[in-house]
């Protein structure tokens, strides 16, 4: 009987701690997202930083949901490399051409494989975060 009561108490305490941690994470997500924006713009050329800081902070405010804000902020980090190249007047790397893989060396193939795996991971994370957010909305 004592064991049952202790187990029940432990479950209640753990559930409460989990709920508190979830609420804390939800509350702090927008601040974390803003912090990510301020870090991300440092990867941009200096002349673009002010513009994208203001633009991205405004856009973040309009994105609903803490997880979506975080995911959007992660996207800002991802976009910084391409943005820097675009504004430097360089064309982005062309879409993968089936023939181009023939011309790639071993390092090129490895780079392509790493990019493919990373892209797949990012897409999987995107789906997972959407699933978690929907579940959280349903639970609320």
């Amino acid at each position, binding site marked *: 009987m004592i064991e049952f009561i202790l187990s029940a108490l432990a479950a209640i305490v753990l559930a409460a701690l989990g709920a508190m941690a979830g609420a804390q994470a939800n509350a702090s997500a927008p601040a974390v997202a803003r912090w990510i924006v301020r870090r991300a713009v440092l990867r941009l050329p200096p002349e673009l930083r002010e513009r994208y800081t203001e633009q991205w902070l405004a856009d973040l405010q309009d994105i609903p949901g803490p997880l979506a804000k975080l995911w959007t902020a992660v996207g800002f980090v991802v976009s910084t490399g391409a943005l820097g190249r*675009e504004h430097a007047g360089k064309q982005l790397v062309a879409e993968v051409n089936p023939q181009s893989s023939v011309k790639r060396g071993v390092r090129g193939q490895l780079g392509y494989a790493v990019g493919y795996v990373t892209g797949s991971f990012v897409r999987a994370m995107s789906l997972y975060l959407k699933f978690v957010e929907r579940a959280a909305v349903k639970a609320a």
Partner: protein
Amino acid sequence: MHEPRITHATLKVFGLFMRSPRRQLSGADIIRETKVFSGTLYPMLARLELAGMLTSAWEDVDPSEAGRPRRRLYRITALGQNAANKAFREMGVPAPGRAATSGGRA
């Protein structure tokens, strides 16, 4: 000037603008309506803007009065509309009509 490549995500964004070409849309509006990942969207917007297919301007508000940062608003140009129509034709997809939608600013 290089012609920007037209990807599936670009078509989604073109489609959104073409539904009402006079609408001004922020990045957040576009993300909400097209679900394009922000890591893909902003380089695309920069590419289309550099190619003259989109223009952008700051929202006409005072950030200190509004209590928030200004939005950067994008609008499709005539060149962009032509490019979008051409892209939809080549894909064999009808260009979106001018239906009213919820987001964006006239």
